């Protein structure tokens, strides 16, 4: 490797699948202004995609980036990002995942891979350090991601090989198809797997034998050890993530009354069901080994499970996280406790986003309950709540685009537009993407999810920590710290509108910095105000890369990225303020069936919170467009010109009409 490059591997690899050409550019052309990974990706996508490009067009690009700190033992430094023009929202698509693949990629000498064009037949890419080959993948086509991993480890003679691949869902351009790292750990949201499938690219395997150097190694290691000590102390107090992953929120989510039951009709599950499917007990019962990723200061959030009984006996897989439990198990009212494990494994094998499944099947089951659809629509399947076998059947039908599954594979919004009959109301989405996030009863979470530039999701601005003190051991300490970190007086008041816009802005910055550096959000102040904060991240960044920056400039990088994502969406879609709002159902229905019984969003207060959100971003509160001044201050004068040309530059307004 080139010796004067620190933390970065130094190269961006461009692989054109249409003509087989491979080129290397320097990461340093981008890294100063765009940090890394997802930041570099949005810059490339914005600059290089012409406005006429569509998601499945060979001219679309799939950008796979490893975080700046990946390759070092920095806390939580194990994330990769995949970004593209997405087939669900039609705008910016971006998804991150824990990754050993990224570690290998950096050691092979690359920070980012840009996939361009479309191969004439199924191919895979084998990156063995300097040696890069585009190889025939006919024999992999049609295989599950698990089969692909096994076959590629044999073919490339390496039992410890790491890959990213698509399953049948990606091959069949299922809109919510994802990209899987090894056997699990998905680049889950936004349909990046469908774009990979449209390029006829089945898999990428990588092996790296190089190394990564940091600029100021003594200082860097000193910070690392200090952070380790802090976590050692905090982990001793409690470390629920390590014990049960995000499933650890089960009791607190029930207590705060925000568990999705029957497609958001109810906000908690019945006690009897809770006893039966308690996911904590399931993990306890079937865990056989730990699973974690480089640097994780929580010592990992994964468990390998072996189901030795029940309808799915014989299955060995990594545990699912909370999202699967809430979005497939409780949303669909399934009674079998190991169903979440099975459904998660099946989604990973076939390469489909669990949230598309929850969204589309949840919508369909509610339509069935309300007699909007019947067996005539569903290929004879009875879509009753709790019908586990039917759900598994539908997952397969979606991934292979068969019958009713072909309609569901488009996601709940497009499916509801095919079915019509006023079924749209039950399709819970954001910018066309199926929504997993529970929007009533947690305002910072709701605001962050709905204003998200990638269409829903809770990792581009949503506030999670507001509900957490409920199950914290030293609650008072937590709140005190949270006030100073997030800069609001009421971080723990979930139902107060005040301060939430400010908290979302903090999270938007933090999430982007984390994604660029490749640091797992759970190791940072997203999940606990005592964890790694923005200054610690900045110190890690400066000592690792040798780039000097101030906290203000560091944060500005993230805001610049957010504005470019916004501009990218404005270029490719018609989104405006209305698309940043919660669904009609969430705006008008009171909560039913939970400890928040009867609580309802106050429309006026919600809109005021939105106004504040746009104001602090320097965006026009009428239409959400960035103003010229905002863009120029961020060094995006050319972007301001582009938006002016398409009539989407914002104005500063005093008052607006809703």
């Amino acid at each position, binding site marked *: 490797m080139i010796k004067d490059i620190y933390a970065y591997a130094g190269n961006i690899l461009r692989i054109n699948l249409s003509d087989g050409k491979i080129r290397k550019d320097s990461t340093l052309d981008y890294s100063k202004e765009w940090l890394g990974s997802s930041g570099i990706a949005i810059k490339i996508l914005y600059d290089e995609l012409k406005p006429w490009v569509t998601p499945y067009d060979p001219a679309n690009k799939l950008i796979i980036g490893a975080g700046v700190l990946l390759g070092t033992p920095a806390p939580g430094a194990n994330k990769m990002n995949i970004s593209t023009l997405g087939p669900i929202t039609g705008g910016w698509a971006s998804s991150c995942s824990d990754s050993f693949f990224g570690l290998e990629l950096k050691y092979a000498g690359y920070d980012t891979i840009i996939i361009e064009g479309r191969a004439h037949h199924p191919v895979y890419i084998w990156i063995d350090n300097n040696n890069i080959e585009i190889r025939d993948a006919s024999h992999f086509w049609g295989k599950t991601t698990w089969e692909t991993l096994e076959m590629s480890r044999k073919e490339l003679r390496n039992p410890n090989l790491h890959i990213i691949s698509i399953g049948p869902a990606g091959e069949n351009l299922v809109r919510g198809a994802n990209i899987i790292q090894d056997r699990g750990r998905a680049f889950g949201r936004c349909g990046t797997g469908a774009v990979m499938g449209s390029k006829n690219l089945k898999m990428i395997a990588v092996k790296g034998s190089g190394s990564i150097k940091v600029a100021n190694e003594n200082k860097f290691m000193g910070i690392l050890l200090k952070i380790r000590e802090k976590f050692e102390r905090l982990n001793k107090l409690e470390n629920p993530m390590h014990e049960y992953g995000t499933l650890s929120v089960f009791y607190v989510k029930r207590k705060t009354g925000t568990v999705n039951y029957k497609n958001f009709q109810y906000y908690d599950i019945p006690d009897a069901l809770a006893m039966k499917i308690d996911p904590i007990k399931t993990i306890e019962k079937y865990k056989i080994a730990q699973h974690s990723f480089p640097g994780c*200061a929580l010592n990992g959030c994964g468990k390998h499970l072996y189901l030795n009984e029940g309808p799915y006996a014989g299955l060995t897989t990594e545990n699912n996280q909370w999202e699967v439990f809430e979005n497939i198990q409780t949303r669909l009212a399934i009674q079998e406790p190991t169903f979440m494990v099975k459904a998660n494994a099946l989604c990973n094998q076939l390469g489909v986003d669990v949230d598309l499944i929850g969204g589309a099947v949840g919508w369909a089951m509610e339509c069935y309950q309300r007699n909007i659809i019947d067996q005539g629509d569903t290929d004879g399947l009875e879509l009753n709540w709790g019908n586990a076998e039917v759900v598994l059947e539908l997952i397969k039908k979606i991934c292979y685009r068969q019958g009713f599954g072909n309609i569901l594979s488009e996601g709940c919004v497009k499916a509801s537009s095919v079915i019509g009959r006023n079924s749209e109301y039950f399709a819970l989405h954001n910018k066309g993407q199926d929504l997993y996030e529970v929007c009533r009863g947690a305002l910072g979470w709701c605001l962050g999810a709905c204003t998200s530039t990638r269409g829903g999701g809770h990792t581009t601005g949503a506030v999670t920590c507001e509900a957490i003190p409920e199950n914290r051991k030293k609650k008072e300490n937590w709140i005190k710290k949270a006030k100073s970190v997030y800069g609001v007086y009421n971080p723990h008041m979930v139902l107060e509108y005040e301060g939430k816009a400010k908290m979302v802005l903090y999270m938007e910055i933090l999430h982007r910095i984390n994604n660029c550096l490749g640091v797992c959000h759970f190791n940072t102040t997203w999940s606990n105000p005592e964890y790694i904060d923005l200054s610690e991240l900045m110190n890690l960044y400066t000592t690792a890369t040798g780039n000097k920056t101030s906290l203000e400039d560091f944060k500005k990088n993230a805001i610049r990225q957010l504005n470019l994502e916004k501009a990218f969406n404005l270029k490719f879609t018609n989104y405006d303020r209305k698309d940043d709002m919660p669904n009609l159902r969430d705006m008008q229905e009171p909560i039913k069936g939970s400890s928040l019984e009867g609580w309802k969003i106050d429309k006026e207060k919600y809109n005021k919170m939105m106004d504040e959100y746009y104001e602090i971003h320097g965006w026009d509160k009428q239409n959400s467009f960035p103003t010229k001044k905002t863009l120029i201050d961020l060094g995006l004068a050319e972007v301001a010109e582009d938006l002016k040309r398409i009539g989407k530059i914002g104005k500063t307004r005093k008052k607006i009409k809703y």
Partner: protein
Amino acid sequence: MVFDMLDCGGCKTCELVCSFHHTKEFSHQFSSLKVLNKRNYPGYQILLVEKEDKMNIPCDGCKDIETPLCLQFCGKRDDLEKIIYRFKRAKLQ
């Protein structure tokens, strides 16, 4: 020697800091620890390089520091501790 790990999550953090101990850079290549998948069963094994060969740098027990670097960074250090201290004892004898 290859050791079966009971509680190890396979995170490879020990691998990265060990290579740093030897070379001041992070890599798999120059680590005396290699984290491997167990064959045919979930979980991990650790290969400790005990003797010099062409490809690998052997463990020196981090002789210059009180707590070996790998142990300072492993959050599940029981197994690793046994391996490293067994090795250190054997080396001292």
